[in-house]
């Protein structure tokens, strides 16, 4: 292979696929959780290699960190052995293959990588770069600022102004999910506390 970086990318992806297969194959759920952590680390390196630094950060923090702890917390309620049964599900394999084929077929319609005439770069992106989004006319007697009445950072303009409601309710969804997780896990915590209190009374 002529390009060494491409060679490293291919090796990383092959190891990632092998890790994923091993994680599915194993009956030991604790081992599967660890293999998923390895898988996330591999994917994060791959994202960094593709210059997607923010995705790489997220993959490392969520995939390798938070998801591992979340899965382990689930294991405290379920046990660490998978039920005996067939390891091979033809229907599931067929579904995955068909979905993958449809997705790959869909990439045929995508514009070339870095194409300046791609729809994503000609639609609203020039507005963001010209910093017109979130522009407020403060008027002659409005507060003075150095930014010419617009949001000074393009990312802030998109996230907090153009998609302000989206970001706000995203936060609400994540908050709800967190409350649900705490509610599910709480009985375990309180029963454990009751047990400690009881043992202290006994002593």
């Amino acid at each position, binding site marked *: 292979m002529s390009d060494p970086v491409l060679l490293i990318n291919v*090796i990383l992806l092959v190891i990632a696929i092998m890790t994923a297969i091993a994680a599915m194959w194993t009956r030991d759920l604790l081992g599967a959780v*660890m293999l998923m952590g390895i898988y996330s680390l591999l994917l994060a390196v791959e994202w960094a290699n593709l210059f997607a630094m923010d995705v790489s950060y997220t993959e490392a923090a969520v995939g390798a960190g938070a998801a591992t702890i979340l899965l382990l917390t689930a294991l405290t309620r379920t046990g660490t052995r998978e039920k005996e049964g067939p390891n091979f599900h033809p229907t599931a394999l067929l579904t995955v293959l068909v979905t993958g084929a449809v997705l790959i077929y869909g990439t045929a319609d995508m514009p070339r990588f870095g194409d300046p005439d791609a729809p994503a770069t000609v639609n609203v992106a020039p507005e963001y770069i010209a910093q017109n989004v979130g522009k407020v006319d403060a008027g002659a007697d409005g507060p003075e600022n150095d930014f010419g009445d617009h949001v000074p950072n393009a990312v802030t303009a998109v996230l907090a102004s153009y998609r302000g409601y989206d970001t706000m309710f995203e936060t609400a969804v994540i908050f709800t999910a967190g409350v649900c997780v705490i509610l599910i896990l709480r009985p375990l915590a309180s029963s454990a*506390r009751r047990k400690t209190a009881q043992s202290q009374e006994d002593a």
Partner: protein
Amino acid sequence: MNSVELITALLILGGAFLALIRAVKGPTVYDRVLAVNVFGTKTVILLALLGYIGNRSGFLDIAVLYALVNFLGTVALLRFVESRRFFQ
């Protein structure tokens, strides 16, 4: 990327692969925890090396983040193995 850097990267990947084999085979849970830890370290080194090769300093930040996340994961795994529960 010259040949020395390429060989270094391939050796690190080989080491990571050996750790992966140990993580799959086990046999005890401590072998697996150690293998995951070694694998995380290899990832950190590989990222630092790739950042050096490509002259991209942002890779070092990510490598530091991975080291922290790896430590967190190991501690969580060992706590689970020790007591089988997190809330007490």
